[in-house]
C-alpha cells in the first residue's frame, strides 16, 4: 500500500512537471509578409442595377420585369465609359473570388411568406485587367453563384488592379420590390480556396 502511494506521488510529481511545460511560448514561426486590398468607392457602396437610361446617366432607375442584361449603375462612367468597380491588391500572386451570400430577396433575410426571390444566377459578372468600353465585356460574363466562385477566380493585372462589370436579368412576372443581397469578394493566395 505504501509502495502504491509512493508510486502515485511520483506519478503526480511528473504530471506536475508536465503541467509546467504547457506554459505559453512561441516556437518554429515562419512569417511570410503582408498584403492588402483596396476597393473602389462605387464598389464599396454596393452594386445598384439600373435601366438603359440610368446606365447612360449613372443614375439608378427602377427595372421592369422581363428585361435582360441590365447594367449596374457605374458599369460605364458617363464621361469616359470606364467601369467604376475595381479592386486593387498589393501583390500579383493573389487571386480574387466573388459571389453572393443570398439570392436577391425582397426581404432582407430572405425569410417570410411574403419574400420574393430572384435566383442569383440572374446576376452575371465579368472581370478584366483592362478598363475601357469593351473590357470587362458582357460576352465574357459569368453567372454569379452563392458563396464564393472558386472555379472562376480572377488575377490582378501587373499593376494590381482588377476591373469588374455586373449585369442583371429580371425574370418576367416578378412584382415591384427592392431586391437585395450581400455581394462578397475574398482575396487568397494563388492556388488557395475561398471559404
Amino acid at each position, binding site marked *: *500500500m505504501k509502495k*502504491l502511494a509512493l*508510486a*502515485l506521488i511520483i*506519478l503526480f510529481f*511528473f*504530471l506536475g512537471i*508536465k503541467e509546467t*511545460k*504547457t*506554459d*505559453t*511560448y*512561441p*516556437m*518554429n*514561426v*515562419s*512569417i*511570410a*509578409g*503582408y*498584403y*492588402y*486590398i*483596396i*476597393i*473602389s*468607392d462605387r*464598389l*464599396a*457602396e*454596393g*452594386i445598384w442595377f439600373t435601366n438603359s437610361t440610368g446606365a447612360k446617366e449613372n443614375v439608378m432607375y427602377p427595372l421592369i420585369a422581363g428585361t435582360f442584361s441590365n447594367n449596374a449603375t457605374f458599369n460605364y462612367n458617363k464621361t469616359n465609359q470606364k467601369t467604376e468597380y475595381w*479592386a*486593387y491588391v*498589393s501583390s500579383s500572386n493573389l487571386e480574387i473570388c466573388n459571389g453572393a*451570400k443570398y439570392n436577391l430577396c425582397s426581404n432582407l433575410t430572405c425569410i417570410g411568406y411574403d419574400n420574393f426571390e430572384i435566383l442569383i444566377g440572374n446576376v452575371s459578372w465579368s472581370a478584366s485587367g483592362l478598363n475601357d468600353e469593351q473590357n470587362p465585356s458582357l460576352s465574357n460574363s459569368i453567372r454569379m453563384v452563392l458563396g464564393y466562385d472558386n472555379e472562376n477566380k480572377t488575377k490582378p493585372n501587373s499593376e494590381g488592379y482588377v476591373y469588374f462589370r455586373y449585369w442583371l436579368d429580371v425574370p418576367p412576372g416578378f412584382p415591384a420590390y427592392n431586391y*437585395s443581397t*450581400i*455581394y*462578397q*469578394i*475574398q*482575396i*487568397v*493566395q494563388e492556388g*488557395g480556396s*475561398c*471559404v
Partner: protein
Amino acid sequence: MFKKILALILTLIFLKEAIATRGIGIGPIENNVTLKAGEEHIFYLLLFNPSDTDVNVSLKVYCLNCLRNFSFLGFSGKVNYTQNFVELPSEITVEKNTSHLEGKFVEVRVKVPYFFEENLIFDNKNIAWLGLAPEIKELKFKIIASSGEKMQFSIVSDLNVKVESDYSILLIIFGIIFLIALFFIKKLRSS
C-alpha cells in the same frame, strides 16, 4: 465671392466623398507552427487599412480539415473536431490611412489540447466523445478578416499547425490504470 467660396467648399467635400475607397491589409500571409499536445502558441495578426475610410473588421477562423471521414470496425461517419482553441476578438476598428508599419496587432492564441472534443456524425445522429491529440497530424486554419455592409470584402491569413505526436500523456494514463489495477489485485489477494 461668398457664393464662389461656398461652391468650392461643396465641390471639395464632394470630391472627398468620391474618393472614399475602402480596404484592409493583413499579415502574415501564412504562419506555420509546430506544436505538441498541451502547448500553446501566440502570434500577432497585423491589421492595417491603407484606404480613405475607417473600417470595422470582423475576424473569423475556419478550420479546413477539422471535418474528416471516420472508419472503425465497420462503422463509418464523419468526425468534427471542436474548434475552440483559437481566440479572437469579434470585431475591431482599423483606422484609415495606416500602413503595415502603423497597423493594429491582434493577439491570436493557438493551443493543441491533449484531448479534442469530437462529434461523430453517424447515421444522422451526433455522438460526442473525447479524442486524443496524437491522432491529429495537422490542422489547417484560415483567419478571415471581413469588412463592408452592402458588399463584403475579406482577406485571409493562413495558419498551419503541425501537431507533433506526444505519447507521454498516454503513458501517464496507462500508468494510472495500471497502478489502480495493481491496487485492486493486491486487495483481492489480501482478502
